[in-house]
């Protein structure tokens, strides 16, 4: 034994524990437990590191016998040998302990040499046995391993030529829910129990069962008639029910009848698995027999696999672009790159057919690279032609996530074509999130550090915990179309979609809905405040040529769909304000105020205005007022007079506008007012002209005023604000002392 094994001593007497520790301390690490319960707790956390247990029988809280009964159900603990410590007075105890599963016993008073040798021998024996066992038995469940099963099942078939057998693959579908809900430890325990139940049931009909990996089992059974099969299924179902497994965890059976005995068991299992895969995710189908059509399917997939490399070199894969739209303005905001296979004999093959095949055989990596390269080449060409291409997102397969050099590969493509990194966005499939979260979070973080923008694809299709959203720094989520397709059926899906959109909004993540097919879909999403989307209602995936034409038709560069942009726009206006050196204070309600006039600070003002716009996008008016010739006032009358004047303006604005309107000092001589009175444009102009006149009359100073009216299509503060400023500047440039409405200049 090269490394020091760990021995756990379970004894309520500290003196006894000290003595055993002392005796073993030269050769072993020792861990102590005061009673059976303590010992079980230690095993829960570190069973894997403990090589042997020395157990006292008579203890308070939980005695040695109870411990012996319970410890083997803890994963990885069942194989730890136990030596029972007894006193020389009761042979009965010794027999009882040995029959309860103890490997050996030692008696008090302890004999150091005896203890040391016994401990070392038992550990050695158990480890040798475990080594041999591990080849045949799965470490967690003690069922046969896949390899052992292949050998044993082949023997069974060979030695019993008269009977017919079924190879059954059993999948505990959605078992990961248990892990997600209760943690992996609990999941493992449950899996052990399931394995034991299965072993007993399969054994009772004369078959054997193995753990194929994860939550998939394979069994060989003599062919059962319908009644017997139903009994088999019912019995297993009952056992599962007893384990309190969540109801969406279902058992699925894929069955291959081994009538062709020349096939290898491995091939039989492959077919059973294949049959199983056809009913994965179907709620009402629980078992399926392998048939010839599945064989054809397999053959078709093999053909695809055999053609794929040639297809790539012969450029039979084509990249299509499906535009993404702003649902409110119905303007294009970008596209998703999709791949099609132009097969010389089979015609156009959809990705739904070949992607799973390529994911299984690993070719997806090459195909993905091809799509990334083609997309960047197209982007480069558009840039060279003076077009203003919008961001294109490409798919990153879950297989790519495991490739450590993924960021470098992507970066090298970006560099090769000198593409701004902002133009190539990465879509990562949500299903990839569930399997290995850590790896994915790590990779997303790495990609983010390289500057890539990440879109989470197919959101809502898998069982994903929403908390993933806060852990994974994605920029965009793409709502899965299946959620959309279901929505008419239930209120629930509507609530889910609304919840996702709200949550995304709070996390600063944009939402793009996929699969918008009808006007109804569009209206529905707009109602839920989903801002972006793609789908056949807008456009099918287009060839590069077709997409280019669409791009040419766009006159103005649209706004990017990343939410941060909107936030920084308000931020930059606030930064502008700070140049005017205005001190601000915070009032009792936590609002930022201008120290001089006690009017709202721009940031508070913007936030409050945006909130009102969100609540009611129509009928709001934003005014920006700039005092005319204020610099002259300052020069001629000095700072004090200026301050007084500014305070009078503030008081004047308070008088002019109702109590609940928002008023802000946005610059040294500039003010903004947000009015939500729902007045039509003409009345607003009339009213504001009046305001300008009264201002001269009451405080002797004139102003230039820009007015921007909100409407359904323009309900964002930063847009309104810049419009109002533009209108105000126009007035300032042409005539001063007056007002103008943005979009109706000169009127």
């Amino acid at each position, binding site marked *: 034994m090269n490394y020091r094994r760990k021995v756990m001593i379970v004894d*309520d*007497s*500290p*003196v*006894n524990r*000290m*003595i055993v520790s*002392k*005796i073993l301390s*030269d050769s072993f690490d020792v861990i102590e437990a005061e009673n059976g319960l303590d010992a079980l707790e230690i095993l829960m956390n570190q069973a894997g590191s403990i090589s042997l247990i020395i157990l*006292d029988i*008579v203890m*308070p809280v939980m005695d040695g016998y109870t411990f012996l009964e319970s410890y083997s159900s803890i994963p990885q603990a069942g194989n730890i040998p136990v030596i029972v*410590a007894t*006193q*020389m*007075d009761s042979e009965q105890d010794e027999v009882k302990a040995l029959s309860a599963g103890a490997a050996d016993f030692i008696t*008090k*008073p*302890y*004999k*150091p040499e005896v203890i040391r040798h016994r401990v070392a021998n038992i550990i050695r024996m158990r480890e040798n046995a475990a080594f041999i066992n591990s080849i045949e038995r799965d470490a967690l469940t003690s069922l046969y391993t896949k390899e052992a099963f292949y050998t044993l099942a082949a023997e069974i078939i060979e030695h019993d030529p008269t009977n017919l057998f079924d190879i059954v693959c059993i999948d505990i579908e959605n078992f990961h829910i248990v892990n997600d809900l209760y943690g992996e430890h609990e999941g493992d325990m449950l899996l052990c129990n399931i394995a034991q139940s299965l072993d007993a049931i399969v054994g009772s009909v004369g078959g054997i069962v193995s753990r194929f990996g994860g939550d998939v089992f394979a069994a060989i059974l003599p062919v059962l008639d319908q009644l017997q099969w139903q009994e088999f299924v019912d019995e297993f179902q009952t056992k599962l029910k007893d384990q309190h497994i969540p109801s969406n965890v279902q058992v699925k059976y894929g069955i291959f009848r081994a009538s062709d005995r020349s096939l290898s068991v491995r091939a039989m299992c492959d077919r059973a698995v294949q049959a199983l895969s056809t009913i994965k995710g179907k709620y009402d189908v629980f078992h399926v027999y392998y048939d010839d059509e599945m064989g054809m399917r397999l053959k078709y997939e093999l053909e695809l696999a055999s053609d794929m490399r040639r297809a790539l070199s012969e450029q039979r894969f084509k990249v299509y672009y499906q535009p993404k739209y702003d649902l409110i303005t119905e303007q294009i905001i970008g596209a998703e790159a999709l791949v099609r296979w132009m097969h010389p004999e089979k015609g156009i093959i959809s990705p739904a057919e070949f992607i799973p095949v390529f994911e299984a055989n690993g070719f997806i990596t090459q195909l993905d690279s091809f799509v990334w390269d083609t997309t960047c080449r197209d982007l480069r060409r558009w840039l060279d032609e003076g077009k203003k291409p919008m961001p294109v997102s490409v798919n990153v397969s879950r297989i790519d996530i495991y490739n450590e050099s993924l960021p470098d590969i992507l970066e090298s493509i970006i560099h090769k074509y000198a593409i701004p990194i902002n133009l190539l966005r990465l879509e990562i499939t949500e299903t990839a999130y569930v399997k290995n979260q850590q790896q994915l979070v790590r990779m997303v973080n790495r990609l983010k550090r390289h500057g890539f923008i990440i879109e989470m694809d197919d959101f809502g299709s898998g069982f994903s915990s929403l908390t993933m959203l806060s852990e994974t720094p994605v920029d965009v989520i793409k709502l899965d179309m299946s959620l959309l397709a279901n929505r008419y059926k239930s209120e629930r899906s509507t609530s889910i979609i609304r919840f996702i959109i709200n949550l995304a909004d709070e996390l600063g993540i944009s939402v793009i809905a996929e699969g918008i097919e009808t006007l109804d879909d569009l209206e529905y999403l707009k109602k839920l405040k989903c801002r972006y989307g793609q789908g056949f209602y807008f456009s099918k995936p287009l060839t590069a040529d077709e997409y280019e034409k669409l791009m040419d038709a766009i006159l103005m560069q649209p706004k990017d769909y990343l939410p941060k942009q909107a936030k920084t726009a308000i931020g930059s206006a606030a930064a502008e304000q700070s140049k005017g050196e205005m001190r601000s204070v915070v009032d009792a309600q936590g609002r930022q105020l201008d120290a001089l006039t006690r009017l709202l600070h721009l940031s508070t003002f913007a936030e409050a205005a945006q909130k009102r716009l969100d609540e009611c996008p129509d009928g709001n008016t934003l005014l920006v007022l700039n005092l005319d010739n204020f610099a002259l006032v300052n020069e001629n009358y000095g700072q004090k007079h200026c301050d007084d004047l500014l305070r009078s303006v503030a008081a004047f604005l308070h008088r002019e506008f109702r109590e609940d309107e928002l008023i802000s000092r946005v610059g040294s001589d500039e003010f903004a007012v947000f009015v939500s009175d729902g007045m039509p444009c003409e009345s607003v102009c009339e009213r504001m002209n009046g305001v300008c006149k009264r201002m001269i009359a009451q405080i002797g100073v004139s102003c230039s005023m820009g007015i921007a009216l909100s409407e359904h299509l323009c309900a964002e503060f930063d847009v309104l604000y810049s419009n109002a400023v533009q209108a105000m500047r126009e007035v300032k440039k042409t005539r001063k002392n007056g007002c103008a409405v943005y979009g109706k200049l000169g009127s």
Partner: protein
Amino acid sequence: MTKLIDDLSAYGVDAKDVLERFVGDEELYRDCLMLFVNDNAFSELGSALECKDYTTAFEKAHLLKGVCANLGLAVLLEKICVLVETLRERKTEGLDEMYRAVIDSIEALRTILS
């Protein structure tokens, strides 16, 4: 320390045998003896006997017996054994005297240790 070993030998301890168990560590042995004489199990044994809770009394006596054996306290061990066996056979006669004898022996040990 030698004086302690001498005194313990006089008390009936087979010092050679016991020190082997402690891998020659006299100090650890002394610490264990101290823990032992101050073990609550003695008083718990006393109160269990008083309440006629013979199951608990047996458990406590049994525990002390194991520790006592490990510490090589032959004389005390003999006295505890009598108590354990009586309790095992569910007899009640003479328990008080037996307990007294155990306590006396412990007191003697405590004197040696101090």
